[in-house]
């Protein structure tokens, strides 16, 4: 499903963020990506999203070679991925419902389908009651769940979460992780970047450790010290 081969990413200012990354992630896997600050985790996600292009090496996602993806095809490629960020990135002036619906409108989903699907998505993340709440009326955990519902809106194959629990208190964090795992059980490939050792240890999933732009460890289980 996801293949990185000798991927190097050098930013225009000369910073080498990734320096020869090789990894393979199967369809339907759940993967934690861990590593020190500045190790290159976010860069890895940006390359997957085709927000940045690899300087060298190849990235293949679902049989698409990202370096050969034309400008016009990028939006269609991105519909295969759902993204969640640390800072939620919801529209402050849209309700939970509208935030999720927007992701569907943007890709031209018929209104009828939107009206059926959005309530179902909000129920999946246990926010059926909060459909008409605005982000500022919700807790961090609730906002992140709206963001998750939005990431699922266009039925992507892959979910990418970059420190989804970074702004959320520990109890809520566990809930978000549980939700991501549930999503994985639905058959989606899930990548979660996190710093939370406790959670990683608790869930006992595959852990990819990035260090200095390399994959320094890749195993199932807890986080290395």
């Amino acid at each position: 499903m996801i293949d990185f081969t000798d991927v190097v990413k050098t930013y225009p200012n000369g910073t080498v963020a990734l320096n020869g990354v090789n990894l393979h992630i199967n369809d339907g896997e759940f993967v934690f990506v861990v590593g020190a600050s500045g190790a290159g985790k976010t860069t890895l996600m940006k390359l997957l999203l085709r927000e940045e292009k690899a300087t060298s090496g190849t990235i293949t996602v679902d049989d698409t070679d990202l370096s050969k993806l034309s400008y016009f095809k990028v939006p269609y490629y991105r519909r295969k991925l759902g993204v969640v960020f640390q800072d939620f990135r919801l529209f402050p002036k849209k309700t939970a419902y509208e935030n999720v619906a927007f992701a569907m409108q943007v890709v031209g989903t018929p209104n009828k389908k939107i009206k059926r699907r959005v309530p179902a998505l909000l129920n999946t993340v246990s926010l059926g009651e909060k459909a008409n709440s605005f982000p500022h009326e919700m807790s961090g955990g609730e906002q992140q769940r709206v963001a998750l519902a939005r990431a699922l809106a266009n039925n992507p194959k892959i979910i990418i979460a970059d420190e989804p629990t970074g702004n959320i208190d520990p109890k809520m964090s566990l809930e978000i992780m549980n939700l991501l795992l549930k999503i994985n059980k639905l058959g989606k490939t899930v990548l979660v970047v996190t710093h939370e050792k406790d959670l990683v240890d608790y869930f006992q999933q595959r852990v990819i450790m990035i260090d200095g732009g390399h994959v320094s460890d890749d195993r199932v289980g807890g986080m290395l010290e």
Partner: protein
Amino acid sequence: MKQYRPTYFIGQAFAGIWRNGVMSFASIAVLMSCLVVLGSFSLLVANIDVNLEDLGLMNQIVVFVKKETPEDGIKAMEREIKNIPYVGEVTRVTAEEALEQMKEQAGDEGYLYDMVQDDNPLLDSFILEYVDGSHYSDIMYNLGQLDGVDSIRDQRSLANTMQSLKNGIMLVFSWFLIVLFIVSVFVIINTVKLSVYSRKAEISIMRYVGATGLFIATPFVIEGALIGLTSSMLAFIVEYFLYGYVQNSMGKAIEIIRLIPLSDVSVPVFFAFAAVGVLTGVIGSTISLSKYTRN
């Protein structure tokens, strides 16, 4: 499958104009002023053209015949003039007819010409018209080769003055046009840029969920087009009253100058304004978007 609603784009465009109220207002004011200047120049040039045509100054040459030329000599000259390429209608005016005309023009003082009735100082002449100004020098050369020509007079110099005045105006006009167009596009680029900037977060989310560049850009292009359209409508109203005012005051002051009636120009001016306005808006917004819509 695709169900993009036009109302979404138009609604977003209006929201954008509203959000950047001051900048939108400023760009409408600038673009409107540019259009009024442009329209005024065009109307000025169009009016000079019409008046040049009216006066028929362009296309007439008068050939005077030497005194004492016998009648069959004059007839021969007439035939030869008519044979010169590109010469149109040729009218013969005898010395007597010329004197009559002068008498008539003098009106009450016409009796003064009675004194020279028997010893007419005027010459026979031909008034010849030509169709195409580019053959003027050929015609003049051929006329110079004729026997029996006393002198040749034409109103070329006045026409030339008018023509070069028009050319001067056209030149200034062209420069103005280029400068104003650049200024307008620049102002719109900045307005739309601000509008895009104020929605940066929104645009980045749209990109993450897979919105196409076209989808993201359309509201902003419509915003630019709406600014252009609003400017052109306002410019049209201003131009309409301005031209009406000039026509009123000129019409009374200088009678020989004929102004093209308002009703003849309003439709072309309206559409020209709308086209230039919308085009400027679309070009400006497209340029300012290129950076943001690139993946």
